Structure formats: structure tokens, C-alpha cells
């Protein structure tokens, strides 16, 4: 089964999709990191992306979030917003949040401040020079602190947190940023079993209100998510469907086990 892009584009609108990639290619010094990649994520969907190392998972996230410019192809957000010509900050403000593979938080700020900086709202320089937080914003941060189980650590430096706590903090930063689409790169890498389970719970809760794309290696974790799975290989989509379907796909088996 080849992943066919079923969403139709009318007058430049990819109807019903939150994210629409068509024929996206990126090459670095001749190496094709993405090769004619086409992928559609529906509004409100939770999608898992798997694939061996070098399959182009992280490059795909880079292209969507404006870190890397694609050589060719179409990238539409919310049906008709072209992401190709925008930079990271602009794309973030449009409503795409990203969690890095390695937990990336502001280490010399405390947990609360990390969330404060990520909080949806004004980003302009001159406002930030003269204004602080409103009570309502404070409550929002407190609520997220409870969700990510860091309520007692609010005044601890982010740099002092454990690996798992940093991952949660970063997810919390995405939550307060309140993007429509979350891109999450390997959220459970390096986590204990208990932490992994808690993270899965957290992601399922987030998926209730947002569209989420998760890149993950851990098959058990992906199974727990119960999401549609896309398999990437050498920069393009190899298979798409439920986890059972793709696990029984002959080519997927070859890519993961063969050679």
C-alpha cells in the first residue's frame, strides 16, 4: 500500500487538513534527506511517524517549522497557509509547536519562567520591555504545571530537573503556547517505563484538543497511542495505516529487519 494523498486541493486549499505536504524534497550536498514526501494530517488527528535512522523524520519537522527550506514541494498549514516562505518565529505564531528530540528548555530559568516565556500571547520586543503577566495568564500556567506534574518544582531551575521532567516541561511549554498542531520528536527517549506511561497519558490528553504528530522509535509506546502510523524510509512515505497493518507490510519488515 502506497500512501496516496487523498485530500484534494481546491483553489490552493487542502480541504479538511491541518497539515498538507506534497512532493517535498530537501537535499544536503546531494544527499536527499526528503525525497518527494507527501503526507496529510487531518484536523484533530493524532499521528505517529516511525522509520529507521536517517529516514528523514527530523528533517521533515525542520521543513514544517521553517528551520530548513525545501527545494521543492508544497507545504500547507490549516488548508491554505503556505509555510515554505516563513521563518521559525512566524510559523510558531501561526500555531505550530515543536518539541525537540533532546529536551530543550531554558536551563537557567526556573520552571515557571520557562512556561511564562512559552505562554501564548505578545512576542513583540517593546511590549515585553514594559509588561508582565496578568492574573489570568498566571492561572493558566498553574493549570499546566499541574498537568505536567511539576507543580512543586515551579521555582526550581529547569537545568536541575531530571531528564523526564525536562521532557514534560517542554511538553508543558507547548501546551501553554497552545498551538493547533504539535510536532513531537521522540518524547519518551531515555525515559523510565513509568515515565513513558505517564507521557503516553499526557499525549493522549493533549490530542483531545490539538492535532499532534509524534515521531517515535518505541513500538510499544506507539501501540499505546492507538494512532494512525506513517512509516518513513529514505525521505518518503513507505506505508501508512494502523500499527498492525504497517507491521505486516512486507516492505516495512524488509526495511526494519532485512538487508
Amino acid at each position, binding site marked *: 500500500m502506497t500512501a496516496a494523498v487523498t485530500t484534494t486541493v481546491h483553489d490552493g486549499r487542502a480541504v479538511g487538513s491541518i497539515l498538507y505536504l506534497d512532493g517535498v524534497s530537501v537535499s544536503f550536498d546531494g544527499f536527499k534527506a526528503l525525497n518527494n514526501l507527501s503526507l496529510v494530517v487531518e484536523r484533530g488527528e493524532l499521528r505517529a511517524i516511525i522509520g529507521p535512522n536517517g529516514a528523514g523524520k527530523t528533517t521533515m519537522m525542520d521543513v514544517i*517549522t521553517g*528551520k530548513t527550506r525545501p527545494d521543492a514541494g508544497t507545504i500547507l498549514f490549516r488548508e491554505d497557509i503556505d509555510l515554505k516562505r516563513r*521563518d*521559525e*518565529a512566524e510559523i*510558531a*505564531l501561526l500555531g505550530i*509547536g*515543536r518539541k*525537540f528530540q533532546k529536551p*530543550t*528548555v*531554558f*536551563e*537557567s*530559568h*526556573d520552571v515557571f*519562567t520557562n512556561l*511564562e*516565556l*512559552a505562554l501564548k500571547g505578545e*512576542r513583540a*520586543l517593546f511590549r*515585553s*520591555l*514594559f*509588561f*508582565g*503577566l496578568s492574573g489570568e495568564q*498566571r492561572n493558566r500556567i498553574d493549570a499546566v504545571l499541574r498537568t505536567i506534574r511539576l507543580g512543586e518544582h515551579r*521555582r526550581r*531551575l529547569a537545568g*536541575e530537573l531530571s531528564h523526564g521532567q525536562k521532557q514534560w516541561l517542554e511538553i508543558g*511549554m507547548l501546551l501553554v*503556547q497552545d498551538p493547533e498542531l504539535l510536532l513531537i520528536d521522540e518524547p519518551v527517549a531515555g525515559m523510565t517505563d513509568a515515565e513513558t506511561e505517564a507521557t503516553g497519558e499526557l499525549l493522549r490528553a493533549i490530542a483531545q484538543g490539538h492535532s499532534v504528530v509524534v515521531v517515535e522509535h518505541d513500538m510499544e509506546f506507539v501501540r499505546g497511542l492507538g494512532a494512525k502510523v506513517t512509516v518513513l524510509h529514505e525521505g518518503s512515505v513507505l506505508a501508512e495505516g494502523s500499527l498492525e497493518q504497517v507491521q505486516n507490510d512486507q516492505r516495512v519488515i524488509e526495511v526494519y529487519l532485512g538487508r
Partner: protein
Amino acid sequence: MPRAFPPATWVVMPLLLAVALLVPVLNLLAPPGSAFHVPTYTVSLLGKYLCFAILALSVDLVWGYGGILSLGHGAFFALGGYAMGMHLMRRIGDRGVYANPDLPDFMVFLNWEELPWYWQGFDMFWFAALMVVLAPGTLALVFGWFAFRSRVTGVYLSIITQALTFALMLAFFRNDMGFGGNNGLTDFKDILGFNLQADGTRLTLFAITAITLALAFATCGYIVRSRTGLVLVAIRDAESRTRFCGYRVEHYKLFVWTVSAVIAGIGGALYVPQVGIINPSEFAPASSIEAVIWVALGGRGTLWGAILGAVGVNGVKSWLTGAFPDVWLYALGALFVAVTLFLPKGIAGALAGLGRARPATPPLAVGREAKA
């Protein structure tokens, strides 16, 4: 709702204002020979240290908070100094060696017929004061615009700041640039009609410098305490994360970079009347590197550490160059190595660590919750 100022402000500001008052008072009232008497020579020396402290503060603002290691901040300091020097030069009038009322001595010496266009207006103090701010500010704005927009960071940025100050040094060395070449600008007579050699003028300049330092400290303190400051530290620690949060990193960097250059320029403008000369050696890469060392020794990212470092290192330098002229550079090197090894957060970091029994609280977060 602004977040106001860091707690250290309420110690540093009164201290600097006290110094502004006390040093001149001790000069005037304590009889010469008494232990409390501060000779005028020392007052000017201290004034020079405080100008360096203003420079150090500006370096700490960009480096300690924004993570931009500038190895060329001396250029902004020198530009402010040259703007002031040009004014003082014009006010010499016909009291120069050649007694030419229209041209500074060095131009007469070079057989120039008339004042170059870029010297026009410098006879007026307000114009020169404006240039003290505009010259370094504009250079920083243009330089920063290109550098930050092209995302030049880290060691590459440090290298081009170094190249910037080096290029300016070479340019200012040239006689036909019209800034006095190698000799620079000197032989100043008076400022706003007050004789620069008079004790009263020197004491007043010292007091103004101390007050300016206090105001610069408050300005930097306000910035680092505001959300802008929080974003700066975020950029320093995780630049791409900050971008993915939706912040325009280049705007924040450009803002703090330009403010910092202006502060450095003001420091330079106060420096020139007190030392009586400005020449291209102020642009020397080594001067800018020395300023970074003051900040590193004093404690990066604390603001007050920068002041401590600048005054401390220069105090030791004055003493050592007098007592053991040969060992000064070795001593500075040894000091830098020792602090890097044993006090990675500088003197300020070590002092703050001593005063804090409970687990480390970030310097920026102290007291914020109480304010909030």
C-alpha cells in the same frame, strides 16, 4: 505591569551615589596628608575606572545575558570618546599651538585649508553629545542588523566584532581620515567653559561619571529584569527553542546590542575629558578583550560583577604597573586562569554562592515571585 529592578540595584545605586559625593568631599575637606585625603590625581584615576566600569556593564549586558560575546566593544567606547574629543578639540579655538581659530592643530600641520564636513557642528556641545549616542548606536544598529539577520553567532560573531574594531583602528590611524591619526586628539583646554585642569572640573567630572554609571546600571537592571531580559537569557541558553516559541530572536539581539553600544559610547565620552586624550589605540583589539576579562573576572551575567571586575582589575593594574611594571601582563593572565579554574562564575558568582545557604536560586528569579 513592569517588574522593576533587580535587588542588587538597591545596594549598587546608593553605593555609587555615595561614591559620587564622598570622593569629591574627601578631596576638598580632608587636609592633604591626612589618611582620608583623596588627591585630585587619584580622583581622576578613579573616574577612569568608573568609565571602564560603564564599558564592562555594556559588555555584560550583551554577553552575560544575550550570550553575544563581543570582542569589539572597545570600538563603541572609542567612538563615543572621539565624538567628545572632537568637541573638546573645537573648543580649543585659537589657543592651539598654531593659534588657528578655525582648524585644530593637526589639520594646520597637514596643510588642510578648511574643516572637513564631518567636523561641522562639533563646536556645539549638544551636537557632540548627540553624536556620542548616535555614532556608536548607528554603527551597532547597522552591524547588528546584518549580523543577527544572517544568524551569525558564537565564535564567528566574536571574530567579526574583533575585525570591526581592528578595521576602525587602522582607519583612525590614517592621517587623511581627519581624526588626528596616530596622535589622536589631545591638548584639550576646557569643557563647557570650565578649565579641564582645574580641581573643581575634575571632581565634577568624577561625580557625573559615578552618577552615569549608576544610571547605566539601573537601565541594564531594568532591561534584564523585564520580560525582554528573560527572553535574552532564553536566547543565550537555547536560541532555536526561543525561535520555535515565536520570538524574533534577531529583534531582541539587535535591541540589546544597540543599547549596549550606546552605553559603551557614553562611557567613552566621559573617559576622554578625564584622561585628556583619545587616540586609535582605544580601538585596539586587546582593549576590547581586556573588557571581556573584567566581566569574566567580576562575574558574568550579574551586572554588579562587571563593575567590580572593571574597578578591581584596573586598580590592581595601576598598582602593579607602578610597583612591578614587568609582571602586569603575567599577573592578568594568571588572574584570568585562576578565576576560570576556581571561580567559574567570577567573583560575584562566588560571593553570591557564599551568601546563599539554600539550593541555588537563579540570579534572575530572586524576588520575582514576591513582586509578582
